[in-house]
């Protein structure tokens, strides 16, 4: 990666943090508990983005951020009073800024920004009263300092004069360094006069041949910087007395280019004629980024129901800088893999120790037990590194809700809870699409329009709540609206119309609600701009299931609906049932299994020549012989020796998997088959068991689909692995 690319990446990463800070601030403002510091932090975020964008010559962003910043500045100085209308413009501006940055990151940012023009006009309208004629030209005046990247090595030519004192210690010679080379390097920097200081030399008789007595004085005339001079002596640091005095009075300019994203912002700050009441309000660049991790804790407290701890948090002294580091994802993945190895290795060791008959309570046994605890702790900590708060995702969803609201003309309030809840980064990324769809659905179908709401005795403003929480090793995400709830009669009617259910089917209210997850179902009467894009809730359900999760709905007519998504904490491990079939040990994801039982022989009926069904609570469920489908053995007749796993596939089809035995239920580390072999029909992935052997993780949906019971689903839907 070139230097420019690296800086660009850093800029966009930091911009993301800044946007988060911006959204946080605006949210606080919308809650009405704004204090001057909130406005300041919002202002700083926009300002830093502007500065960084200027450095990369992203004109459209600079122009927009500048207007945005002017309004915030007016707010900050009290020239403009906060109101709902102002806040609305600010929110939309923040959304637009996010969009601009995203397009810039993808490299598709246009010089002019037609979509932003109306917003720009609105922003200008807000500051219109305070805008002086001079201000209107400040766009011209604002000349962001574009970075000269080849200048990174140091400041331009200017002759400096250094006086260098260099007195090597004995240790310098002992470690094999040679002062002559150092002096030669110094001389190479410019014109140097070197004088040897012999004053430390003792009498010949008392001379210790191993000791250092000499010192040098160097007068150096050079174009090189102070740091270049120090660099020469870098390797003998601590092995000598070194003084470097500079007598060319010309002070070194700051190196703004060394801190690209926020640094250059400091310069436009001074040149822009924007009123700047408090110079101190401009933070040290690092403080701006440090604020976002720190913000997570009040977030968490809010989620647990504590009453507004932010006020206390804000008056607290600023958080210490550098509480986070950025790490390449590949390194973490590698570490996760290695820890996975460690876990397997430890399990193999335990089995070996048991097999060799080492007594329980012996030193080896106790040590092994400690190793097991440690390994598990390491595994948990490493998994935690990949985990990220869902906050950024939630903020994006708030934006989508606002957009959807303005497109449908519904006013709504988006509440998020538990934004500090942490989930695996990959899961978060894959959640974005289904959540977007569900939020849009909630706004479009869930919420009524204002008249209907008033008629129903509700506030005209609809409310959508998005929450996340940890629940017994899983993550639960809920999307609730306070709309009309599912219109069950209508859902039923549509389902019958589309042939999804028989007209006389007996369904519980919950069954009816769940019909919306059926493929080919869409309740919207007309195709609106929002939903009705050919993507239904069945797609949402499928994508959640591909993450190893489940989605369900509960709805109360008149009071709204709640969608719950239950997800595993990470994609790297899976709760699996270790079973045996046809002499092979395989794993079936527990998320697919509804029930397990011995074959109830008297409830098994033959259907046709080769097919059997089992009657469970009155319903006939097809029996799928896993051993035969996977080719492990010839088909067998189900008898009392076999076990049935009642599973539900991704398409909602139920089937009874016929297997030989259940061994265990445990978390297994998911290993991909694809990278070295390819897709295997009916197999989702592989894992490594305690004995070091590989066990395949079966995909019940594909196995059931294979037999035709699932309506011809594709033969392999690989689980997202690793």
């Amino acid at each position, binding site marked *: 990666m070139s230097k420019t690319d690296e800086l660009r990446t850093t800029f966009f990463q930091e911009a993301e943090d800044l946007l988060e800070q911006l959204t946080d601030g605006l949210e606080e403002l919308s809650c009405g508990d704004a204090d001057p510091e909130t406005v300041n932090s919002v202002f700083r975020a926009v300002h830093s983005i502007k500065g960084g964008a200027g450095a990369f010559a992203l004109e459209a962003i600079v122009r927009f951020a500048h207007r945005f910043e002017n309004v915030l500045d007016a707010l900050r100085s009290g020239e403009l009073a906060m109101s709902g209308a102002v806040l609305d413009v600010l929110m939309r501006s923040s959304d637009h800024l996010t969009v601009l940055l995203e397009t810039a990151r993808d490299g598709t940012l246009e010089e002019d920004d037609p979509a932003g023009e109306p917003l720009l006009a609105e922003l200008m309208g807000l500051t219109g009263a305070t805008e002086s004629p001079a201000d209107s030209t400040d766009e011209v005046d604002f000349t962001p300092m574009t970075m000269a990247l080849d200048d990174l090595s140091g400041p331009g030519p200017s002759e400096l004069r250094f006086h260098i004192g260099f007195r090597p210690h004995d240790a310098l010679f002992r470690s094999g360094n040679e002062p002559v080379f150092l002096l030669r390097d110094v001389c190479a920097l410019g014109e140097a006069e070197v004088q040897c200081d012999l004053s430390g030399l003792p009498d010949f008789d008392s001379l210790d041949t191993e000791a250092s007595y000499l010192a040098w004085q160097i007068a150096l005339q050079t174009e090189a910087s102070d740091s270049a001079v120090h660099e020469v002596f870098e390797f003998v640091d601590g092995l000598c007395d070194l003084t470097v005095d500079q007598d060319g009075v010309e002070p070194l300019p700051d190196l703004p280019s060394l801190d690209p994203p926020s640094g250059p912002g400091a310069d436009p700050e001074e040149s822009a004629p924007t009123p700047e009441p408090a110079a101190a309000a401009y933070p040290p660049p690092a403080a701006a980024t440090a604020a976002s991790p720190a913000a997570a804790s009040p977030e968490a407290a809010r989620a647990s129901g504590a009453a507004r701890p932010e006020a206390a948090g804000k008056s607290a002294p600023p958080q210490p800088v550098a509480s986070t580091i950025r790490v390449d994802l590949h390194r973490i993945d590698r570490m996760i*893999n*290695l820890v*996975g*190895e460690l876990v*397997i290795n430890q399990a193999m060791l335990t089995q070996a120790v048991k097999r060799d008959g080492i007594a329980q309570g012996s030193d080896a046994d106790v040590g092994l037990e400690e190793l097991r605890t440690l390994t598990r702790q390491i595994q948990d900590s490493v998994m935690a590194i990949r985990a990220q708060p869902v906050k950024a995702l939630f903020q994006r969803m708030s934006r989508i809700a606002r957009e959807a609201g303005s497109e449908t003309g519904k006013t709504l309030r988006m509440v998020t809870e538990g934004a500090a809840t942490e989930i695996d980064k990959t899961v978060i990324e894959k959640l974005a699409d289904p959540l977007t769809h569900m939020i849009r659905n909630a706004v479009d179908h869930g919420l009524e329009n204002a008249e209907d709401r008033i008629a129903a005795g509700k506030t005209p403003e609809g409310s959508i709540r998005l929450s996340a929480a940890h629940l017994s090793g899983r993550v639960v995400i809920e999307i609730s609206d306070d709309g009309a709830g599912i219109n069950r009669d209508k859902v039923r009617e549509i389902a019958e119309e589309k042939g999804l259910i028989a007209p006389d089917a007996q369904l519980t209210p919950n069954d009816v609600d769940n019909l919306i997850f059926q493929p080919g179902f869409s309740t919207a009467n007309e195709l609106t701009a929002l939903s009705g894009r050919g993507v239904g809730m069945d797609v949402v359900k499928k994508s959640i299931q591909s993450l190893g999760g489940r989605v369900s709905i509960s709805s109360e007519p008149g009071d709204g609906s709640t969608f719950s998504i239950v997800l595993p904490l990470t994609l790297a491990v899976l709760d699996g049932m270790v079973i045996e079939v046809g002499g*092979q040990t395989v794993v079936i994801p527990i998320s697919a299994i509804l029930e397990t039982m011995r074959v109830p022989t008297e409830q098994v009926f033959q259907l046709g020549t080769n097919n059997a069904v089992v009657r469970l609570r009155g319903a006939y469920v097809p029996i799928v012989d896993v051993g035969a489908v*996977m*080719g*492990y053995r010839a088909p067998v007749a189900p008898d009392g020796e076999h076990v049935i796993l009642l599973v539900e596939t991704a398409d909602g089809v139920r089937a009874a998997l016929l297997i030989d035995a259940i061994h265990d239920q445990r978390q297994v580390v998911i*290993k*991909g*088959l*694809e*990278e*070295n*072999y*390819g*897709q*295997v*029909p*009916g*197999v989702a992935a*592989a894992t*490594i068991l305690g004995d*070091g*052997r*590989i*066990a*395949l993780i079966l995909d019940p949906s594909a196995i059931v689909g294979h037999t035709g019971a699932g309506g011809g689903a594709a033969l392999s839907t690989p689980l997202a692995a690793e």
Partner: protein
Amino acid sequence: MADPTETDAEDVNELIAFRIAEQDFCFNIMSVREIRGWTPATIIPHAPSYVRGVINLRGAVVPIVDLAARLGLEVPEPTARNVIIITQIDGPIVGLLVDAVSDILSASAKEVQPTPDVAANGSEFLSGIITREDKMIRLLNLAAILPETVVAAA
């Protein structure tokens, strides 16, 4: 797909030689990651008969191709004396089950003779023949022996 056994740019190639069913084979040693003893593999359903299954190679899931079966030779049940040559060709890691590794050869591209046109089973997997001490050593075309699924995955 570039054939790693035919890197003509180098004049002399190092080749790993091994035996399967009393026949000598070789391929470019640059494709070899490591050599290990036989361990039982986990069966892959619906896999071609020459795929023995998958093994755990320090956490990676690696398929094992039984070269004897692939080349249409006599296939005894593998024992602990069998050897797996772990290879990596353009990405996927694949283990090749052979009887024994015999030698490491240096051969220039000139020494490689074209495969005689016989209707023998398995000759489509050879990219040439090298002579060493009166022995005929068959140069394997690794890319051709990989299972189709692997080629699709690569």
